[in-house]
């Protein structure tokens, strides 16, 4: 006769513990860190590219780019002025996890930086479940993706600390109801900081950059 042994253990515990270790390491170096999530094509790399020149002389920035393959994103970040740009190829995995970030942190002298930007794999489903240990999670949404995304991916939208709404220069050309989108966001994540901006025209980038600087100087 089988006996039942109670376990009650969160299955993602191992990842959460490693994320905590990453956080301890980042904190020890006095670095502010963000984890950027978005669907493919929302503009994660463009946002980093446009942000880095605006931070020049204000914050020293290291980037970690997660992708299934290629180093295109890390190359773009390095070209835009990142002090260090580490590429993580997940080899097919759909998200970064705490172990992968730990490997990247080992390649960095964190004491040389003020801000660590981690660019996650383009995906709205699972990156939110795998904590990395960064201070804030930032979601980059974009106007052409459609205004229904908060409703379709509640798990991602509810867990973020800041929301960038990219490509607002396209608002006149696509059927994107900002109020419907914002309502979906506010239901599950009331009061979340939002940054409507355009990486193409530069509109709105200054507010976003100030937010980074304020957090990094805390």
């Amino acid at each position: 006769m089988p006996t039942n042994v109670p376990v009650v253990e969160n299955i993602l515990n191992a990842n959460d513990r490693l994320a905590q270790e990453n956080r301890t390491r980042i904190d020890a170096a006095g670095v502010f860190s963000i984890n950027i999530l978005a669907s493919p094509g929302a503009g994660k790399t463009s946002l980093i590219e446009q942000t880095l020149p605006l931070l020049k002389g204000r914050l020293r920035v290291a980037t970690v780019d997660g992708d299934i393959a290629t180093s295109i994103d890390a190359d773009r970040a390095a070209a835009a002025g990142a002090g260090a740009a580490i590429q993580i190829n997940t080899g097919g995995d759909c998200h970064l996890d705490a172990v992968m970030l730990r490997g990247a942190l080992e390649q960095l002298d964190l004491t040389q930086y003020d801000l660590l930007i981690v660019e996650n794999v383009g995906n709205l489903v699972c990156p939110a479940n795998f904590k990395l240990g960064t201070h804030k999670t930032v979601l980059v949404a974009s106007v052409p993706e459609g205004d229904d995304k908060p409703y379709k991916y509640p798990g991602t939208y509810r867990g973020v600390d800041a929301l960038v709404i990219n490509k607002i220069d396209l608002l006149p050309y696509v059927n994107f109801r900002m109020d419907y989108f914002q309502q979906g966001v506010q239901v599950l994540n009331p009061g979340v900081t939002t940054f409507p901006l355009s990486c193409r025209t530069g509109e709105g980038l200054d507010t976003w950059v100030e937010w980074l600087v304020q957090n990094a100087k805390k």
Partner: protein
Amino acid sequence: MHELPVTQSILKIALDHAEKANAQRITALNIVMGELSSMVDDSIQFYWEIVAKDTIAEKAMLNFRRVPAELQCMTCFHKYHPTDKELVCPQCGGVGAKIIAGEEFALESIDVE
């Protein structure tokens, strides 16, 4: 895709607890899975047969207890099930809700011999 490392994690937790219980064999794993956990049970089942091979958990049944999502409106405190089209409170139209169920993803217990 993320179910592979997740399944390995489930196996590790189960084996640790089976060892503590001096078990010879694990016959079943009872997993609780919330609607909002973004985990797919078929996918876990698929990887399970690969990762559990040649362990004392080989051939163990995976039992999934699914928990529907439940939100509670922070304006009128009505509890409701969200749909993919509508998240606002169906009773008062309030925006701003708390998730009270549906995010669970845990190994609740194992059956051993």
